[in-house]
């Protein structure tokens, strides 16, 4: 295993260096880096040209200049990492420092969400093949697949961002909006749940009716200005999640598992008030730590309940703990919403359309919750615009892959020996259908990087995409190489992770080559 990984890594690094040579030479030949000085009217023009030539070694031909750059990169082994300097004399490492975290944040959020939602949509459409729901989702994914990401981003910025901010000035729904959303929800749910005509009607009525009621309540209570879930809703959601999770992972017939899940949900609700009490002192790391603690408690409860299958109960407990913690944290963020949205810096228009955060906000407050909300409101639109395009392709691929798996002989065997539908889908089909999707996700990362360049340009993020775009316009090679080195390394990493995922998903794949 280790030999395989190190071999793969070595091969990828060699490929990465060959590719960096290609990018370097192509970029250096993309235009004249002295163009602005040649046409300038400054008196010390020749001096400036000589200065820049010396700074960027422009007197060396690009094919050789690459090795000057490479020697700087290789100095990483003696602790003097050097990626050269940008045209204005700033070291590229410094430029990257601020840009990397912003872009990685965007890329990782979008990728994770796209995978989770894509799988969900893909599986449900595959299980309801040729239903109305399937056709609607298929049509929509074709549409998003054909939509240029900048087009989507500009529309989101204009209608969702600015539109939602306007909506917050008077957060009430008109009656027709409530009716429309309720009808759509009813239609979607009956499509997903399926069944005969009568069952479909009942599903549609329940889903549509409850959606309409919730929306009417939210609208009348002015919920959008002071949102919160409260302990009651968390309790309901928590127990609901507990039942759903144990139904999906172990089946409701497995009583131990169900007891574990409900117990974990009850513990979660019990620590709600203590958590809110200490929440204002928390930081990102302590919140993550508490999350890990919660999962640990979930595993412990599952282990104590035991039963025939301890591992199963522990898994259910952990998942339920994760869900309840998630609801609690969301609730805590919501409680800070009013303070955040009405603060002077935000001024009642919380959804950000420019930049990765509200300027100067971190000077005013150090509260994790406020700053977290700020990141969230600024990440929202860029993530959606980056997400929808990959979501379209992921859901298509996972649908095809689930359908493919469902037609395999081993699924027929599983059904023939009398396994329940849940076991067939969750144990036999789901896991196997993940294998082809892993390839797509790893392969698609390059596309996401391209999407990030555009998204960052539109939303005015000063991340790596913007760094690349600005540098390429003035043919500034070193920042572009810095950009490529980071994205290339992350792509290599993703491919390695995909290899690991293969071995985890398919025991037949042995990587001892």
């Amino acid at each position, binding site marked *: 295993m280790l030999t395989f990984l190190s071999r793969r890594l070595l091969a990828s690094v060699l*490929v*990465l260096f*060959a*590719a960096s040579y*290609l*990018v370097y030479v*192509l*970029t250096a*030949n*993309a*235009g004249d880096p002295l163009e602005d000085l040649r046409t300038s009217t400054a008196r010390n023009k020749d001096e400036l040209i000589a200065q820049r030539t010396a700074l960027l070694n422009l007197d060396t031909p690009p094919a050789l200049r690459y090795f000057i750059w490479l020697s700087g990169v290789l100095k990483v082994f003696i602790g003097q990492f050097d990626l050269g300097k940008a045209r204005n004399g700033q070291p590229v490492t410094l430029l990257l420092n601020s840009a990397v975290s912003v872009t990685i944040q965007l890329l990782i959020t979008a990728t994770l969400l796209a995978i989770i939602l894509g799988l969900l949509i893909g599986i449900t459409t*595959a*299980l309801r*093949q*040729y239903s109305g729901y399937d056709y609607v989702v298929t049509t929509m994914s*074709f*549409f998003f*697949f*054909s*939509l*240029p*990401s*900048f*087009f989507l981003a*500009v529309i989101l910025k*204009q209608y969702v961002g600015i539109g939602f901010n306007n909506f917050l000035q008077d957060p009430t729904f008109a009656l027709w909006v409530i009716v429309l959303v309720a009808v759509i929800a009813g239609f979607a749910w009956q499509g997903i749940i*399926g*069944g*005969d005509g009568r069952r479909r009607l009942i599903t549609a009525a329940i889903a549509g009716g409850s959606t309409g009621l919730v929306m009417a309540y939210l609208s009348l209570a002015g919920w959008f200005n002071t949102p919160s879930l409260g302990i009651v809703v968390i309790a309901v959601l928590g127990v609901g999640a507990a039942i759903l999770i144990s139904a999906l992972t172990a089946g409701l017939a497995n009583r131990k598992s169900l007891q574990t899940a409900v117990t974990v949900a009850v513990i979660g609700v019990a620590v709600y008030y203590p958590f809110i009490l200490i929440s204002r002192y928390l930081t990102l790391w302590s919140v993550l730590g508490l999350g890990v603690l919660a999962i640990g408690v979930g595993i412990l409860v599952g282990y104590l309940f035991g039963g025939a299958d301890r591992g199963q109960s522990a898994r259910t407990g952990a998942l339920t703990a994760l869900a309840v913690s998630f609801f609690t944290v969301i609730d805590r963020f919501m409680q800070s919403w009013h303070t955040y949205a009405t603060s002077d810096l935000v001024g009642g228009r919380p959804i950000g359309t420019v930049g990765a955060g509200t300027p100067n906000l971190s000077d005013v407050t150090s509260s994790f919750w406020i700053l977290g909300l700020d990141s969230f409101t600024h990440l929202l639109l860029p993530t959606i615009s980056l997400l929808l395009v990959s979501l379209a392709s992921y859901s298509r691929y996972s649908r095809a892959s689930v*359908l*493919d798996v*469902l*037609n395999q002989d081993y*699924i*027929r065997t599983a*059904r023939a020996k009398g396994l329940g*539908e849940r076991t067939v889908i969750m144990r036999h089909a789901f896991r196997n259908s993940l294998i082809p999707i892993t390839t797509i996700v790893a392969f698609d990362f*390059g*596309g996401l*990087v*391209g*999407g990030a*360049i*555009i998204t960052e*340009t539109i939303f005015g993020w000063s991340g790596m995409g913007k760094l*690349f*775009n600005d540098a*390429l*316009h003035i*043919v500034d090679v070193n920042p*572009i190489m810095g*950009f*490529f080195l980071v*994205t*290339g390394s992350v*792509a*290599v990493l993703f491919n390695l992770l995909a290899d690991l995922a293969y071995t985890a998903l398919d025991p037949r794949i042995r990587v001892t080559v």
Partner: protein
Amino acid sequence: MSNPLSPLPPEFPEGEDRDRNNFLDEGGVTEPNADEVAENAIELKEIEGLSQGRIVFRRFIRHRAALISMFVLLFIVVLAFSAEGIDALGIVIPGWWQWTYTHVGDVINGGRPTLSLVPEWLGGPGIVWGDHPFGQDDIGHDTFAQVMRGTQQTLMIVFVVGIVSTIIGMVIGAISGFFRGTIDAVLMRITDVVIIIPLLVLTAVLGRTYGNLGSFVLAVVLGLASWTGLARLVRSDVLGLREREFVDAARVAGASNFRIMFVHILPNAIGVIVVNTTLLMSATILLEAALGFLGFGVQAPDISLGKIIFDYQTAFTTRPWLFWWPGAFIVIIALSINFIGDGLRDAFDPRQKRALNRAARLDRAAARARASA
């Protein structure tokens, strides 16, 4: 359908497993209507002796979305090239539209579009085409003319990229898969090197270099960058095909490597090639638009759909039509090529066959029973 003559018991007709995933929809059997009967008749005919091309064609024209998309795309091609005429390689044929894309006229009514589709009996001005149906920009260019010219350029780029990258990808994939060994290793490492550079990054750099040489050169250069996916797919197909008996037969008959590769093997990989070229072309539209939007695509004085949006991106709130029309054309073209690709995939890939309904399964079982009797 592996062997149409195998006498399967009628309880297990081959189409059965297709419906397996409808496990919760029990008893949803509907009576076949006329359409379904016609469709089933076509499906049944497929087991008669039809050539591969014939089967593919029949399946394709049955894919309604693909067929409609085909006509939409054809309409757009005819519209774009007839409206603005042709101006390439020194041949100039004027189009029927009154303005050219470079013509600067007076800005009328703030450049608002004169196109109206609201009929008079609904209180609108009636169906009016007007002088500037898609509006004008701030200095008086006619947007319809610009969009038509942009569509021409975009379509040209898409087809050139499709042709160039298909040729390169096909040749590299075929050589790599056919000769295997060192040649394969070297070619695939080269492919890896190109694939690891994000496509937008590679094409933006190339576009920055060659964009000012005209859109045709740009198109060729983009084609040189986007062949990698196809090369890998063709390679894996050829690796399987080269072990088949017909290759041995050709070799025994004295065919050269070149002949075996291009006359015997590649025609069998045509499905993969056609489908992926189509999908590549739809991706190219978005790529060209993205490049145009970043300013690394087609350069002035020429225009493409992406460049129009790039030029007027700040005018979104004041002159939204400069944004909506080129965008709409990008989406329509990309959408129709995607649907055509989907139709082609269904047509070429027997595994993706549409589900047969119950009546068809019974018919087919009966036909099979007759054949075996």
